[in-house]
């Protein structure tokens, strides 16, 4: 079966359930619920003609007859139980992006309003690639964007994604990556929009000695709501994962759920999580849920999370050095993000991130 056939099969499943399936809230237990049922879906034509296209650095002659990757389309849940998933699968256009040569690649992904985009990014065996995915939205409406990333044996990927959106835009995404033997993936996602953002990111460390570093940097303001889940699933032996999430909130809400899951065969796994939330005003709301599921004792796992405002003592120290209150706050915000921004590849994405995170917050501080 080629990729188009596999996709069409899922599409017909999804078409059958779209109407019946509700948008479900996520129940965390103990009465904590992440609300999703308030997401408004546009009226859509279901089961649009399957369009599988190729973009970017692709060297695929006839994408319609693309041989599927062995882990193709993992981002689509086996059982489609949520309306948002169903609507996406029923309507999405599929793009195959295959990076055939090592080096730096920039791919611009347009997300028009009321659009459904499914990307497949393939880094074949032995390739060492840096990929910047730059998302552009119209600024309003509802969009979905799923991506399946396959990093094959001995390949290395630095994948950086930058998403910006206006408060009027709603974005629903699932992102799933599989790593082969000795594969390495550095995955950075930066979010400063949309008004409502739902992002499920999962990395499957399937190959032995594979390594994954997932970073989520965000700044929420103007009543934005981010609902983000970052997961590492270890299956291969001697695997390593680190999930970092760091962001600031100002009159906005963020739910950050992290999960390190160590499956039974994953001997000698290391899994770490670190989440830091900076609350810049009293209308900010941070929910942090760093989960661990361990099924193999031969592991080192830890997670840590913090929620706080700018540190009074640090502010005071800077003030004694002659900085006024505003300037001191700006410096601390810069210090909060810079160590993370500096790790991002490609290097030319760093100034963009600085602009979106640090400069944006600083000008909001100026305005207040």
């Amino acid at each position, binding site marked *: 079966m080629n990729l188009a056939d596999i996709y069409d099969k899922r599409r017909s499943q999804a078409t059958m359930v779209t109407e019946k399936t509700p948008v479900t809230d996520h129940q965390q237990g103990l009465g904590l619920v992440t609300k999703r049922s308030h997401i408004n879906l546009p009226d859509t034509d279901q089961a649009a003609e399957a369009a599988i296209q190729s973009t970017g650095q692709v060297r695929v002659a006839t994408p319609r007859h693309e041989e599927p990757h062995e882990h193709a389309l993992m981002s689509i849940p086996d059982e489609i139980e949520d309306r948002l998933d169903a609507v996406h699968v029923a309507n999405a256009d599929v793009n195959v992006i295959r990076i055939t040569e090592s080096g730096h690649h920039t791919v611009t992904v347009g997300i028009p309003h009321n659009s459904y985009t499914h990307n497949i990014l393939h880094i074949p065996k032995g390739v060492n690639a840096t990929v910047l995915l730059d998302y552009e939205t119209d600024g309003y409406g509802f969009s979905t964007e799923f991506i399946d990333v396959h990093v094959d044996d001995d390949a290395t990927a630095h994948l950086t994604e930058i998403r910006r959106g206006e408060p009027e835009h709603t974005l629903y995404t699932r992102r799933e990556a599989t790593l082969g033997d000795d594969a390495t993936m550095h995955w950075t996602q930066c979010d400063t929009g949309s008004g409502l953002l739902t992002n499920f990111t999962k990395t499957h460390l399937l190959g032995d000695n594979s390594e994954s570093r997932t970073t989520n940097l965000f700044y929420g303001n103007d009543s934005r709501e981010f609902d983000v889940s970052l997961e590492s699933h270890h299956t291969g032996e001697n695997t390593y994962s680190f999930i970092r999430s760091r962001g600031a909130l100002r009159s906005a809400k963020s739910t950050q759920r992290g999960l390190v899951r160590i499956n039974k065969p994953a001997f000698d796994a290391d899994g770490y999580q670190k989440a830091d939330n900076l609350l810049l005003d009293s209308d900010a709301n941070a929910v942090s849920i760093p989960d661990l599921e361990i099924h193999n*004792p031969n592991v080192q796992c830890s997670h*840590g*999370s913090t929620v706080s405002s700018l540190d009074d003592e640090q502010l005071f120290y800077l003030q004694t050095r002659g900085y006024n209150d505003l300037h001191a706050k700006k410096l601390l915000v810069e210090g909060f993000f810079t160590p993370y921004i500096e790790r991002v590849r490609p290097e030319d994405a760093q100034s963009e991130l600085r602009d979106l995170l640090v400069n944006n917050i600083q000008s909001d501080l100026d305005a207040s």
Partner: protein
Amino acid sequence: MVELSRELYDHVDDATYEFKTDKGLNEKVVRQISDYKDEPEWMLEKRLKCLEIYEELDMPDFGPDLSGLNLEEITYFMVPDADKNSRDWDDVPEKIKETFERLGIPEAERKSLAGAGAQYDSRAVYHNIREDLEEKGVVFMDMDDAVQEHPEMVKEHFMTSCISPRLHKFSALHGAVWSGGTFIYVPEGVEVKQPLQAYFRMNSMSMGQFEHTLIIVDDNAECHYIEGCSAPTFNKKSLHAGAVEVFVGENSRMRYSSVESWSKSTYNLNTKRANVQANSTMEWVSGNLHSGVTMLYPASLLLGEHARAEHLSIAFAGEDRHQETGAKVYHLAPHTRSTIESKSISKDGGITGYRGLVKIPEGSYDSKCSVLCDAMMFDNESQSLTYPSIDVEEDDVDLVHEASVGQISEDQLFYLNSRGLDEEEALSLIVSGFIEPLVKELPLEYAVEMNNLIEMEMEGGLG
């Protein structure tokens, strides 16, 4: 030191019963319970209201698998043939006395504890309190008696502002069929220095135990209450759905300690909650072992400024056990503090879980919380799950969460081996060190019991 073995807990008495209801839960059963106890009308109404809510609510949609629990097969109320609340140990029937003797209850009382109570199935059989405390106005009695003797206090506090029947399905169930338990009142300015204690024992197959513990500590007072629980192993499932409600007044201190060692066939779905007023401290110290399934998340509601909550818990899950414990803390006033420390051990395919929620709403400024979870796993069949969640709406806070899971280090084992300890002894010693922070918070009696229980769980199958 008394040697403990599981045989001691698994011992089943052929005690006779004076009264028991039919299996299953319906209005008739609830009316029978209330009628048997000769309860005032308001309590019957409360029970019926709870039954209504119970029928309305769904089973929990998270945590351990409860599909093996058939709520229709449970006998919700049975009364042992004993004079209720004997003040003298000699009056307690021989069979029941034997069981409690085995578990060390009268011994504990004679030694150091200020008061002791014991409950057998649905009925409290023994309550005693030292005379000097009684003179100061301290009340320590069976909950059923408190309904009759202190109706005003019970009416005000029983399942009202602390545990609402609407909290979840099993709190509603508890409200409908509760029986026995402990009532404690510590008047203003009185400090009860030595712990009050109670022991709950389930002796029958397919039964439920639903004791209600209500503790009211007035302003400027102090109290320590300690509770132990056990049940023999049957091949049919039994249910423990107790409730503990604690009210801590201003400038007071309350410590609630429990060691729950129900049997493998027990579903331990317990609710514990405390309302903590200004400048007061609530401490929860709990050990959970042996029961087949546990879902227990003690909660602290910090209602006044400078209120504090300290949660310390340990769970041990062996073969076919799923122990899910945790903590909930609501910081509902400024300058509130909480610390949560949770330790768990899983072995032989057991599952331990930590599930927690810390909530700091807007306005609770200058609040601080730290959460620490440590898990230890013995083998590839076991599981360790951690689901903490923190929800913060206030920017002037400090919240830290940390967790770690790991295997026992080879270095530690090698070191102990080189000192002449065999592997089993070395593992026991490492586990003792791991649980020490909890055990040292318990009175001697319970510390010894806790250590023995852990040792019992550790026996055999190691490596």
